[in-house]
Each structure stands twice: as structure tokens, then as C-alpha cells.
């Protein structure tokens, strides 16, 4: 384990930024935090987490896939892929780190999404333990320990120092490059912090939320549950939950006619939208209830069914904070899961 004094943190950032683009949470003018590229003078945010999840780094909201250039009646196909530099994402919380596993299973299984894979291979993740989780946090429900974030390098921040431990070869290499600014140390402070975090976890209001009612094979049982009507009643059909979610991975592929050709791009889509997966015959899910149900069934039943029981929610709590009508996965789990969810 290595540590660095917080006083030297900017030197550390500078050192990292020498070899790769460094992104870390920074405060925005509206008071929220967002991952932004580190530049001389950038200030690392104290916020618990960012509004947008770090999935953008690997699965950006819009991404050009290819382009067609038209001239008269001729069409030329253009590869829009650009060379990518190595980059480092700093300060990723345990929940968000876990979300990458969930995305990987979608994008890196056959057929591999080469755009995603390329970005993934260039990124180094430095995670950060949560010393002050929010009341909206429920990562523990999904077996995530905010005191033990994974990633290429795990980090813990105390009042005075920041501690690092590498978990992968990539992480090890990066940490070695930073050896001049860090020093070897024991894990006393980190163990101490882990204990504190564990204690707080016991106090979180959502600590008892259970997934027992969900998982693969539950489709028949849950699909026609009468509670879906009530739960989806107020849903506005916006995409807020989807777009702030670190694990939502649906996208639409669209063509943009530039006048001189076409750019084919993909962009995030939301299963809450009325035209989601609209096909020649029309829509699969015609009512907001069906769309609403899809989102939660996918996270809690369909995904685990196809992915060895892994739920595609990491309990980051973003949707709890951001939903305009405060309807969210926790309310769904409690209602649909009945007593088992308690």
C-alpha cells in the first residue's frame, strides 16, 4: 500500500496527466459534480458522487459509428473511429466500478462491441472508498462494499492522506510511475476507515433492502404483479433514471443527414420512452406501465437470468435523487418484493 499526502495531490494529478488524460470529479457551477478533464488549477470535488455516472467514458451518450459521404449519386463509406489515448478516471466509487462489470458483460461478450472494448482497454480506473455514504445509497444490497472499491487501483481518502493499492497489472504500472510522489505505508489508517464505513453502513436507512424476491427465473411470478399499475401510475416517461444510471446500456442507432452525407451514430436510449425499440410493426410496449416494468424487470430479473445471477443495479442511488416524481427501484423492490424485500 502506498500513500500520498493530500497536500501533494495536485502534483500527483499532474504526474498522472503527463502520460494519460486524467478525469476526476470536479464541481460545476450548479453545485453538482461531474467528471472533467484535469488541467492545471482543476480542483477535485468533495461531492460523494457525480450526477452523470462514469459509464460515459466507455459508453458515451453519443458516438459516431460510421459515416457516408454522398456526392451526386455516389456514396462513400467512412470509418469515423479515431485513435484513442490512454486515460485515467480518478475517484470512481465502488458502486460505479461495479457498473463496469455489468456493462462489460453486455458489450464484451460476443459479438464484442469494438467501440466499447477500445475505450475499455485504454482506461485505467482509480476507485475511491466512500467515507460518507448518503441515505440514498444501497450498494450493499447488491453485495458491494463501499469500503472496498475495486478497479485498477483502489484508493482511500482520510483527512490528511490518500492511500492506494493496485489490483491489476495496469494499476500496478500506473502506481509505479507515481512512486516518486507516494510512499510505502502500512494499512492501519485504511483498516480504521473501513471499520468506520462499516459502522455507517449499519445506520443507512436502506441497509435492509433485500434482493431475495428477484433474480433469474422470477419472470412468471413478477411479470403480472398487480402492483405495477400503482407503481407506474405517476411515471412521466422521461429518461432521467436511465440516463443517470451507471448500468443502463440501451442505445439507439440513428442516422443524421448532414446535407453532404449521413453520420450513423448511436446514442443512449431509454426504455421509458414511447418509441423505445420501435420496429416496423410498431412498439413492443405500448403503455407506460409496460415500459416502466421493463426497466425494473430487466435490472432485477432478466439480466441476472442471463448473467449468473448478477443484478444490473449497483445501488448508487442516482435515480432516487433525480427522478422528478421520486419513483425508483427501491420503491419497486419493496412493493413488488413484498415482505421479502424488507
Amino acid at each position: 500500500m502506498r500513500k500520498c499526502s493530500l497536500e501533494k495531490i495536485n502534483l500527483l494529478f499532474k504526474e498522472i496527466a503527463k502520460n494519460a488524460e486524467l478525469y476526476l470529479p470536479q464541481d460545476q457551477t450548479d453545485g453538482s459534480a461531474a467528471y472533467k478533464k484535469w488541467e492545471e488549477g482543476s480542483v477535485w470535488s468533495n461531492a460523494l458522487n457525480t450526477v452523470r455516472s462514469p459509464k460515459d467514458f466507455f459508453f458515451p451518450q453519443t458516438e459516431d459509428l460510421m459515416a457516408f459521404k454522398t456526392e451526386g449519386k455516389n456514396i462513400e463509406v467512412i470509418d469515423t473511429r479515431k485513435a484513442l489515448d490512454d486515460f485515467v478516471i480518478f475517484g470512481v466509487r465502488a458502486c460505479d466500478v461495479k457498473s463496469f462489470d455489468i456493462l462489460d458483460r453486455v458489450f464484451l461478450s460476443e459479438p464484442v462491441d469494438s467501440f466499447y472494448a477500445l475505450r475499455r482497454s485504454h482506461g485505467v480506473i482509480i476507485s475511491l472508498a466512500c467515507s460518507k455514504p448518503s441515505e440514498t445509497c444501497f450498494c450493499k444490497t447488491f453485495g458491494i462494499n463501499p469500503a472496498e472499491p475495486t478497479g485498477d487501483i483502489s484508493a482511500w481518502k482520510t483527512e490528511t492522506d490518500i492511500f492506494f493499492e493496485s489490483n491489476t497489472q495496469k494499476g500496478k504500472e500506473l502506481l509505479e510511475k507515481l512512486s516518486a510522489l507516494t510512499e510505502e505505508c502500512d494499512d492501519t489508517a485504511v483498516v480504521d476507515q473501513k471499520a468506520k464505513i462499516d459502522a455507517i453502513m449499519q445506520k443507512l436507512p436502506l441497509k435492509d433492502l433485500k434482493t431475495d424476491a428477484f433474480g433469474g427465473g422470477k419472470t412468471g411470478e413478477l411479470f403480472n404483479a398487480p402492483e405495477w399499475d400503482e407503481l407506474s401510475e405517476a411515471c412521466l416517461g422521461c429518461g432521467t433514471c436511465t440516463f443517470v444510471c451507471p448500468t443502463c446500456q440501451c442505445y439507439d442507432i440513428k442516422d443524421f443527414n448532414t446535407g453532404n452525407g449521413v453520420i450513423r451514430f448511436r446514442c443512449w436510449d431509454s426504455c421509458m420512452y414511447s418509441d423505445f425499440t420501435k420496429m416496423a410493426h410498431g412498439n413492443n410496449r405500448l403503455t407506460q406501465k409496460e415500459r416502466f416494468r421493463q426497466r425494473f424487470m430487466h435490472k432485477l430479473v432478466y439480466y441476472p437470468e442471463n448473467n449468473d445471477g448478477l443484478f444490473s443495479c449497483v445501488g448508487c442511488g442516482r435515480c432516487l435523487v433525480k427522478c422528478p416524481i421520486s419513483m425508483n427501484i427501491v420503491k419497486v423492490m419493496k412493493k413488488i418484493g413484498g415482505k421479502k424485500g424488507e
Partner: protein
Amino acid sequence: MQVNEYKPLIVAFCCNWCSYAGADLAGNNRLAYPADVKIIRVPCSCRVNPMFILRAFQRGADGVIICGCHPGDCHYTSGNYFTRRRMAALFSMLDFLGIEKERTRVEWVSAAEGAKFAATMNDFVATVTALGENKRLEDLRCKK
């Protein structure tokens, strides 16, 4: 040394009854104005949807001008009165977003005002040329 002179792209929406006829009259009288101006015929200035204007800027226009009959002379009685309000609101909003207000204009040109049409276009092209390329409301995807 080759000087690459900046030529703006101007989209002019002209109502069929007055301004388009005014543009024709400018042609009849051989009153020159820059070829940068491209005219789109609409039945009435009130047919111009703000979306068309934004679309033009997106696609690379540097200025958009809407020409209609003089207030009170609308072939459809009241069309240009609505245009006047809609465009006042839209232009004010574009300005509010920091987009150069000189890039948009409404002019009333009657069928008898060929000279005014040409003069207006000359002036508008000069104004937009002085502003330079539209950078604040452009869509880079549409650039060549």
C-alpha cells in the same frame, strides 16, 4: 498570395405575394445584390417556422432574413402580424442566448419595392459578412 474572401451564406424566406415579387422586380430592373442570398418561396411570411430558421443555421447559414408584405398589406390579412410577433420573440430569445442579433432580420418588402429588396440584401450581406462565420449556432457535423 491568395486571399480567400469570406462569402456568407444567406437564406431569405420571401412571401409569395410581396417580397418574392419584390425580388423578381429587383431582377427585372437588374438591381444587383450578392449571389450569397438564396431565396426560398413561402406563401406568406407567417409560414416561416422558427424551426426553419434554426435549421438553416444548423446547416451552415450565416444569416437568415424573412421578408413579407408590409404590415397591413398581407395577402392573407394578418399573416405578417403573426410573423412580426413570432420573430420578435424568437430573435429576442436568440439574442438572450448570446447569438448575434444581426444574423436574423425581418424586412417588409412590397411587390413594388425591387430597389428596397436589392438594397436590403446588400445591406444584410454586408452586415453578416462583417460578423463573419456563424459559430454560435452551427452544427459541426454539417460542415464539409
